[in-house]
Structure formats: C-alpha cells, structure tokens
C-alpha cells in the first residue's frame, strides 16, 4: 500500500525545477544559520583556546604598559614601562598563585622585515617557569636555552619560517647588532607565540640595559582560586595594573557581538525569505491540484489526511533543504571562517566556524519547525477543499 509520504514525495517530483528552487532557498538559509551558530560557538571556543594557551589567567604589568605596548607595536616607539623583577617574590607567595613567570617584552625595528621594514618582537623569558606554564609548546627542532645568560634564541614557528632559520643558525638582533644562536624552533601552536623570538630573560635584560626589570608577569592560578580576590590584592601594589584574561575575553566578545547581531539579522531575513518561498511553493501546488485534492476527498480522504499530505510535502522540502544546507556549511566552514576573519577587527587563531553534532541537530530541528509552521496555512487551506467545488471547478474550466 502506498503511504502518504510516498504520495507527497512523488508529488514534489512533479514540478522538479520549482521544488529544486525551493530546496535551494531552504538550503541557503540553513547554511547561513549553521554558519552563524557555528561562528558563535567557534569564535568563543577559539578565543578560549587562545587564552588557555597563554598558560596563565592573569597578567600583571606596569601601569600604562598595554597602551604603550600597542603603540610600540604600531610605531616602533620606546615608551615601554617597567616594573622591578623583585615583585615576583611578593606575588608568588599569594595563596591563589600556582605558578608565575616574568617576561620582558622588547621590540626592535627590523629594516629587512617586509617591504619597508617592521617590528620584531623579542620576549625575555625564564626557561624553567615559562616552559612549565606553556607545557603545550612543542619543539620542532632543538630545545630551550642552555643557561640563563646564553646568547641563544628559541624561535616561534612563523618567526623561523620568516627568517628562514634552523637550529644551529645565527640570527642578528637589529639595532643592537648582537648575534644569537638559534637553539630551538617551536611547532606551530596557533597562538601569538608562533611569531615570537624567545631570549633568556637575563640576556635580554643585559642587552637592553634593563637589569632586574620586566614588563609583564604571567600568573597561573590554582584550581578554583578566587581570581577577583587576587586581583584586588595586586591592585594595591604601587604602579601595577592587572589584566584578567577573562576580562579580555569579555571585551573581545563584546566587540564581536555587533558583528554577531548583524549576521543574525541576515540569517533571520534569509529564514523569513525561505519560509515565504516554502509557503508560496506549497500554496501554488495546492492551487494547481485543487481538483485532485477534491477527488482525494471523494475517495475517502478526511480533511486531516489532506492536511497531513501537504504538511509532509513541506517537511520533506525542509528536511532535504536543511540537510543540504548543513552539508554546505560543513563543506565551506573553513572558507566561511576565512571570510569572517577578513571582516573582523580581531579574531583568534584556529577555526572560527565550529560545527558539531549538537549544532547540526539544533539547526535541523529549527529548520523542520520552521517548515512545519510554513506548511500550516497551505495544508489547512487544502484540507478545506470540498470535493464538489473541485468537480465544479473542472466543469467551469
């Protein structure tokens, strides 16, 4: 016996082009919807990953430092502020602190970088504490420095690629004209570490004549530690400001929310257009089959049967269109991520569009619900067709 679903499916095949165009409309809406939700999910995940990859949850630095650091990176200025390294001893005693690592950031102008030169960033780090905090950093070649005063560098993956250096090569620090030996090259980590050149802290302090001075402290908190309590305590220290990476995340997510609202608006418009398309297609189909539906009622179909038949057609369209859209979103998620990356002022490393099974199911259910809603009016209209009207309409044609 033929089922209602089979009847519905065969009917959709009757007007192939129209059904196909409707499917394309639904698929595009589903694509936009999945990509948007995937972006929401992916951006936050990537940002969290970036922040986790910092290895610490709090950064302490000399007041004004972040802004000056930004200026430095943009213009190559030298207005960095410093704090005494001795501050490490007072902070490390705090009960919330698990580990701490001092960092000295320095930047030099490298005339050979890019077309018209650029800023090269050097991070002075303590190999022991830094590598403990960033245990996820893996070496492609070599290892950390041999001793704290060595004239050695470890290069991030991209920095090594850019400078075309391998372990054993020499690298000249511009402006200072001091030669360093490359002792390690890191694997790609997908973080800002990829573009950084690491130097032993004491060596960098010596080269830049900043003995016992640092720019930044990375602080890793103990599990379940009260971050705000520690922040309040650190604020009491003179000339120190604290940046919580959770705050950084919130700020970035706030900036991104405008973009999200815009994309969401586009998705809503796309969904509304698809809904109108579905309603139009099914209404046209009902109108064209006016007599046929009337005859179905003479051969025993109740209004509910006709309602179901038309509703199933809508569901089939939405299910296939939804799956097609999800497939497109999966296939083009990387490309979508690249496009979004171009449009955003800041985007974390890694995939920006993250589509998982939960998201796929949510979208499919959403598309089916939209389909069910779209199908109500045409199905109700078809259910009300009276057989006699259908037969008479033939007579009058």
């Amino acid at each position: 016996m033929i089922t209602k679903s089979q009847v519905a499916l065969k009917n959709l095949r009757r007007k192939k082009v129209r059904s196909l165009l409707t499917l394309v409309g639904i698929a595009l809406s589903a694509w936009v919807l999945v990509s948007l939700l995937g972006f929401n999910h992916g951006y936050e995940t990537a940002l969290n990953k970036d922040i986790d990859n910092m290895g610490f949850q709090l950064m302490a630095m000399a007041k004004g430092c972040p802004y000056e650091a930004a200026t430095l990176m943009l213009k190559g200025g030298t207005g960095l502020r410093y704090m005494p390294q001795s501050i490490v001893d007072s902070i490390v005693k705090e009960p919330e602190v698990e580990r701490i690592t001092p960092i000295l950031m320095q930047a030099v102008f490298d005339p050979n970088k890019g077309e018209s030169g650029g800023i090269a960033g050097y991070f002075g780090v303590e190999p022991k504490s830094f590598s403990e905090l960033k245990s996820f950093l893996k070496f492609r070649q070599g290892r950390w420095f041999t001793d704290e005063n060595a004239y050695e560098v470890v290069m991030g993956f991209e920095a090594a690629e850019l400078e075309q250096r391998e372990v054993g090569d020499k690298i000249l620090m511009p402006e200072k004209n001091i030669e360093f030996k490359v002792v390690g090259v890191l694997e790609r980590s997908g973080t800002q570490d990829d573009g950084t050149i690491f130097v032993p802290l004491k060596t960098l302090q010596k080269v830049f004549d900043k003995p016992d001075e640092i720019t930044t402290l990375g602080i890793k908190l103990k599990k379940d530690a009260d971050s705000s309590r520690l922040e309040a305590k650190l604020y009491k220290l003179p000339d120190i400001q604290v940046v919580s990476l959770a705050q950084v995340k919130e700020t970035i997510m706030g900036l991104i929310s405008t973009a999200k609202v815009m994309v969401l608006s586009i998705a809503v418009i796309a969904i509304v257009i698809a809904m109108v398309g579905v309603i139009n297609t099914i209404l046209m189909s009902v109108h064209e089959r006016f007599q046929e539906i009337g005859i179905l009622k003479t051969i025993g179909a109740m209004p509910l049967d006709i309602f179901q038949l038309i509703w199933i057609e809508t569901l089939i369209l939405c299910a296939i269109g939804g799956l097609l859209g999800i497939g497109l979103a999966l296939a083009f998620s990387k490309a979508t991520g690249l496009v979004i990356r171009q449009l955003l002022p800041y985007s974390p490393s890694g995939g920006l569009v993250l589509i998982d099974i939960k998201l796929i199911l949510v979208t499919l259910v959403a598309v089916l619900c939209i389909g069910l809603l779209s199908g109500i009016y045409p199905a109700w209209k078809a259910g009300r067709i009276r057989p006699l009207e259908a037969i008479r309409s033939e007579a009058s044609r």
Partner: protein
Amino acid sequence: MNQPILEAINLKKVYLRGSEQIPAVNEVSLRINRGDFVSIIGPSGSGKTTLVNILGCLDNPTSGELNLNGRSIFSHARRLSERELTKIRRETFGYIFQNFYLIPTLTVLENVMLPLTFYRKKGSEDEGMKLLKLLGIEHRKDHLPGQISGGEMQRVAIARAMVNVPEILLADEPTGNLDTRRSVEIVEVLKDLSRNSDLTVLMVTHNQELARNADRLLEMKDGLIQETMDFAKKVG
C-alpha cells in the same frame, strides 16, 4: 420486493444567482434497489449531475429527504457536515468521473490502492491486482496514467472506485471522454460489476444508446424525472 438502498423523497436543490432562485432538482422522489444498474439521462442543465451528487452525498439538498440503507442521511432536521459526508462516502460509495482524475505521479496500481491509504475497509495489493485483472489492465500496473489510453484510464478509475468495496458506484459521464468502442466496453464493465458483485450502479450519461444497457433509465428535464423505463427483464 427488494430493499431500497437509496430512497429520495421530494429532493430539491435550489441555487441562488443573485436574488434569483434556480431549481436544479425539483421535488424528485425515487427508490433505487440494491444491485440495480440505473442510468440517468437528460440534456445539459436538466439536473442529472446535481441529483447524482446529492444521492452520492457529495452535496446537501435544499430540502427533501434521503435515506441510505434505511438510515436517514438528509431530512428537514438533518444536514451533514463535510466530515460526516466524507465518512458516508468512503464507507458506501465509489465514484468515477468523465475526466478520470487519476494522480499523474502515481502508477496504475498505486492509483488503485490510493483509497486504502485513507480508509482501510478491505483489500490489499492483491485486491488491487485482482481488480486490475478483472478490468483487463493488470499488464499496465506499473505504468503512469500518462502512458495509457483513455479507456484504460477509466478502467483504472473504476478499479480505484471499487477497491474499498463500495455498495454504490456513481458514474458521472464515464464515457464522456472516450470513443464509441471504448464507451461500450466501459458500460459493459459496469454492467458486469452490477450483475456479478451485487453492486448498485448509478450512471449519468448523454448517450441514450449506452443508457439502455441499464436495468432502469431515468430521464430528467428541468430538474424533474420525466420518464422511467424499466429494462430489468432484459438484463435478466
């Protein structure tokens, strides 16, 4: 005396065109017995289709009474909703029309089986095949309606009307779109069904020659039954 399967008493159907009342069926009374093959003839606008639509529970009369198997379907106090009409239709009637109204996307067998999708009274795929065999079109079971002739399409429509094992078969101009040879074949099929299955057949036609195949012939004019001819003895 045979039990009447359908009994109409003073059936009247009036259409309104503006303020003008147009009586399509005017105080018609008749009895149709189980197993009868009845033809209704008359010129266009004589009210024969309107009468068959009322008798077949496709429409409510304006006044009068209609009894089906001794049960009152319409009366002064009783008018049926579309839902109730559908229930009666699928339990009792099978319909065939001049334009066949087969579903073009379904095969011949699927078209025949379609009523069972909505109402399972009796029958399976074997039942559908049996009907196709009975009507001589079993070799067309996997064809689409567009791939078979008009005569075959009407046979499919008859099989579809029969699959729910109706008590009454209503045929409104079943040969209207067929040539003479196929028209005769279709009427022969209806006659055989009536004879062999105790099926009551009501056939509306313009064709007096074909109408004479029935047991009884009702001639309508201006909404009234003008003449009744009984050929029962000829049918035997």
